[in-house]
């Protein structure tokens, strides 16, 4: 498993810092934003003010490190549902442009999703046509209540890449620097026309699957405790502290700014007009069929 930062935030083997400190700070900001949104959104859901919600908690380095390897002016991001910071960073999906000749697609999915046949078909075809795709597998150990070891008996899911003629790498998904590095390599490879890659980021879902879930039914608290010791946010903070770029004051500033950003977004969302029922018939087809048009009239009482 590829790693640059150990859980205490020290560069392994005395390596040189691979990334600009500002870049890492930017990553940390996204990670902290994500964590704060998780808390706030869970609170809102508990108050009945938000629907079902899936937190990113514990996987921030995996999501942010990979998404920061993309070039928003030409690349595409195709998320599952546990990649909120990536979507905030780049939009959902990047759609400012049609896929340009040297654009790369990064797609996210869990170790659970990778058991579906579509994973196989997509990887295999991508290998054949050398599609510029990065398959980013977030192995967070859980698919709702199903643990990784019941999902597959493969030693590593990255090993599956060989069966599609592409490189596969396992990376510490709680290590922002390592995730970013392997992601940039995969993106570069894709951009150079050398084809797809599979990245398996080993991380851990430190919260429930979503707000309807109750992990106490299936999760060993000790496992969760162990995961907390590998918290991806604290790891980056420790790293930056070691580089003189992080202290309590900075942390408070970040948190303050993030909290304001979130509250502003909530206010804005609350002001957004609710969808109108006529929108049920928008964008079904470029033009409604006569039957659909009649149904629309019925719905709007124009029948």
């Amino acid at each position, binding site marked *: 498993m590829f790693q640059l930062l150990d859980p205490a935030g020290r560069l392994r083997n005395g390596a040189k810092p691979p990334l600009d400190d500002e870049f890492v700070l930017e990553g940390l900001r996204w990670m902290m934003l994500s964590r704060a949104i998780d808390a706030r959104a869970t609170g809102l859901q508990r108050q009945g003010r938000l629907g079902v919600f899936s937190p990113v908690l514990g996987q921030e380095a995996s999501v942010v490190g990979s998404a920061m390897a993309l070039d928003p002016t030409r690349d595409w991001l195709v998320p599952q549902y546990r990649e909120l910071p990536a979507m905030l960073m780049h939009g959902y999906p990047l759609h400012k442009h049609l896929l340009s000749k040297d654009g790369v697609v990064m797609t996210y999915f869990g170790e*659970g999703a990778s*058991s*579906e046949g579509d994973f196989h078909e997509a990887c295999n075809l991508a290998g054949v046509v050398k599609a510029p795709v990065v398959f980013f597998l977030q192995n967070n150990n859980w698919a709702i209540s199903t643990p990784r070891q*019941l999902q*597959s008996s493969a030693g590593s899911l990255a090993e599956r890449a060989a069966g599609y003629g592409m490189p596969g790498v396992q990376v510490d998904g709680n290590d922002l620097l390592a995730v970013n590095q392997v992601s940039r390599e995969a993106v570069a490879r894709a951009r150079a026309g050398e084809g797809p890659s599979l990245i398996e980021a080993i991380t851990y879902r430190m919260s429930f699957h979503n707000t309807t879930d109750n992990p106490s039914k299936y999760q060993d608290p000790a496992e969760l405790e162990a995961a907390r010791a590998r918290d991806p946010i604290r790891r980056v903070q420790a790293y930056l502290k070691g580089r003189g770029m992080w202290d309590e004051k900075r942390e408070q500033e970040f948190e303050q700014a993030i909290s304001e950003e979130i509250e502003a977004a909530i206010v804005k969302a609350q002001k957004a007009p609710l969808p109108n*029922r006529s929108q049920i018939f928008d964008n*079904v087809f470029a033009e409604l069929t006569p039957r659909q048009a009649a*149904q629309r009239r019925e719905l709007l009482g124009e029948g």
Partner: protein
Amino acid sequence: MPEMNIIEAIRDALTMEMTRDERVIVLGLDVGRLGGVFRTTDGLQQRFGKDRVVDTPLAEAVIIGSAIGLAISGMVPVAEIQFLGFTHQAFHQMGAQLGRFRYRSRGRYPLPVTVRAPMGGGTKTPEFHPDAIEAQFVQYPALKIVLPSNPYDAKGMLLQAIRDPDPVLFIEPERLYRKGRAEVPAEDYTVPFGKARIVREGKDVTLVAWSAAVEVCERAAEQLSGEGVQATVIDLRTLVPLDEETLVKSVESTGRCVVVHEAPLSAGFGAEIVATLQENAFFSLDAPIARVASYDTPYPPASLESHWLPSPDRVVKRVRKLLSA
């Protein structure tokens, strides 16, 4: 008699049949330790062990595929698919495989498989989850399609499904899972397939529905009754086999009929009911048979679903129109 909601009734049936018949195996996503995302299998793994309550990898097609294999090798599998809309992923294993083994093996491999899945909207789940695609499965003529709408039927029909020598798609009304308890016998009983339930009787119009739409019709009938219109409500219970007799008899007496379902209108199973009734009760009809269904669009955003799904109001309006025709 104990009172149960639908979840409890299903769990009761599973427990009962797993106790009675050692060949019964439950498999699916999260059915084990979690007890299912709706808790229908809660406690079963503790009771019957990991060999009989199996958490599978996340792959619907091979859940159905395994059920086929288990049945061929002598077991009686009950596969759970988390939402009927996830059978999109398993479509090729459902009708085209599960529904053909007896036929293509000339009777050598009957498949006593039950596939359970909740269906329907109204709980603000996004697309896929609520997709009401029951009619698609009817086009595979060797699957039985059954849809209980209440706790009593849920237990009795599930026991019937598991014991049925043929594959049964057992569709549960998600919206009604915990909507009130009703009396459910503690003992063993089955509700036979192909026998509709007359929920209430009235002389003016017949409302036909299945699954959660039965409850919509009941509310509509209540409202109509306040307006002096007496409606019969028929809960079809099973689409395959279809109880044509009960349908025809009722429409012969009321002369008017509205079919209500959650699937989009076009090519929904309502069309089959209409086609069947107009053929067999043609000369008793006082007005064309009407359908109230969801509109012909993909499942809308959660905030709009109540406008999209058939409502008691829409049913009432449609009945009024029929009566004034």
